[in-house]
């Protein structure tokens, strides 16, 4: 092992990697190990981990393969942010490190931990199966292999970016909904679902959409945009999620999805009063039966504490509602025009 001798040399310094350790066969709980190694400018986090594994501690475990940002194996959290170790420069991370000279490396969130930096990807794969994340061709089997199945360039551009996904699970790790509910479909699966749904060669559109509008599906997203911010391929994941929602409302109407009804109820309240009529919102979103079954105990508590929202007749219109209505009308018109131009 080479020990750094010239610390003054530009572009080379000692960096401490604080690595998350957990071996389920030995450890009762996770801990961190510090490794201080000389790092040159231009070295990635993955190269540093490889160096540590080969020269200092062979037992640290992480997944990695291509080392070039193509395969998506080395997703991990570097200083708290989910990214690929192989495309993350040590120098860039150091510039933003909270503790100078220290880089914290942890496994991805929202997936079961196997060991050290390795997480179990199976839950994600299972969801991809559940939401039919593949193209089921409309071409009759007898024609397959005999002629090409072409699409227009215009159509291709609609899902070009979505096909860049390498399933590194960085978005899965950053997703705030998944953190609250592991059953949630997850951003990567929504992106793939969108990519398949807008493909004109695919025949599963209705089936896939029917699955997506159920519980834990596309309507559970809260628009926090963290998936899009953390995407290592800079894919606009939120565009895909919005795309699925618009598609769902358009081709299935308002009836079967509580999410779309929720959005519709919001819109009508805002248009009428300039604010929400909270008392009836659950009924309009999920129906009377659901509300009675799920929210009655809470409603009773609210009555006891005198915290019930006012009934609809008592909700006064917000100040400046007249000006607001004019603005609202104008915005609605803009959106409508926008949709028309998109359709072309």
């Amino acid at each position, binding site marked *: 092992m080479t020990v750094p001798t010239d610390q003054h040399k530009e572009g080379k310094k000692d960096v401490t990697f604080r690595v998350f350790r957990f*071996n*389920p*066969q*030995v450890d009762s709980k996770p801990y961190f190990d510090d490794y201080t190694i000389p790092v040159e400018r231009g070295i990635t986090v993955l190269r540093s981990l490889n*160096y540590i*594994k*080969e*020269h200092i*501690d*062979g*037992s640290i*475990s*992480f*997944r990695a393969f291509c080392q070039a940002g193509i395969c998506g194996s080395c997703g991990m959290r570097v200083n708290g942010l989910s990214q690929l170790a192989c495309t993350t420069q040590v120098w860039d991370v150091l510039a933003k490190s909270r503790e100078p000279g220290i880089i914290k490396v942890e496994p991805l969130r929202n997936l079961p931990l*196997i*060991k050290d930096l*390795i997480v179990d990807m199976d839950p994600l794969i299972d969801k991809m199966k559940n939401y039919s994340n593949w193209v089921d061709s409309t071409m009759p089997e007898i024609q397959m292999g005999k002629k090409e199945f072409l699409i227009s360039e215009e159509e291709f551009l609609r899902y070009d970016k979505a096909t860049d996904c390498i399933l590194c699970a960085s978005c899965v790790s950053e997703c705030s909904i998944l953190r609250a509910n592991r059953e949630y479909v997850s951003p990567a699966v929504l992106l793939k679902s969108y990519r398949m749904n807008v493909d004109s060669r695919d025949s599963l559109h209705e089936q896939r959409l029917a699955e997506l509008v159920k519980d834990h599906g596309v309507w559970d997203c809260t628009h926090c945009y963290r998936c899009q911010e953390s995407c290592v391929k800079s894919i606009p994941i939120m565009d895909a999620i919005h795309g699925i929602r618009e598609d769902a409302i358009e081709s299935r109407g308002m009836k079967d999805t509580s999410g779309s009804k929720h959005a519709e109820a919001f819109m009508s309240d805002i248009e009428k009063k300039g604010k929400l009529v909270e008392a009836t919102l659950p009924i309009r979103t999920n129906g009377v039966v659901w509300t009675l079954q799920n929210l009655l105990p809470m409603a009773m508590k609210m009555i006891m504490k005198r915290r019930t929202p006012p009934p609809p007749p008592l909700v006064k219109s917000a100040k400046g509602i007249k000006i607001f209505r004019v603005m609202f009308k104008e915005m609605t018109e803009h959106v409508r025009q926008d949709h028309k131009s998109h359709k072309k």
Partner: protein
Amino acid sequence: MHASGHYERYGELREELGQTLALNVGIFRESSLLQKGIEDIAELKERFKKVRIFDTSDVFNTNLMQVLELKNMLDLAQTVAAGANARQESRGSHTRVDFPVRDDANWHKHTLATLVEGNVTLGEKPVTMGRYELQERTY
């Protein structure tokens, strides 16, 4: 068991294997370099016997995987070097500086390498022709 407790590290062995293959068993080859490569590989194989596995768990043991891969790499390197040394001609990317011309009379055949008790035995197999015929490479 080694009384001194001396052991070898996977990382160092793999790095040295890469070095000697790049320097001596690369695209431009010649007998003396190949000989050196063969000796280096033999030495590394000897040192490999003392390699240590640091990860002793049986959950996702990437350390053990690396070491097993290195073992195969060493075997493969040995057969590649032996085959390259035996083939006294240049063909495709196998460029023997000491035999720069393709020699179809003696070498238009596959080399079959077998490892028997750590030593390479070289055999051969005729090439099935049909689609393309032999002709001089002029580009």
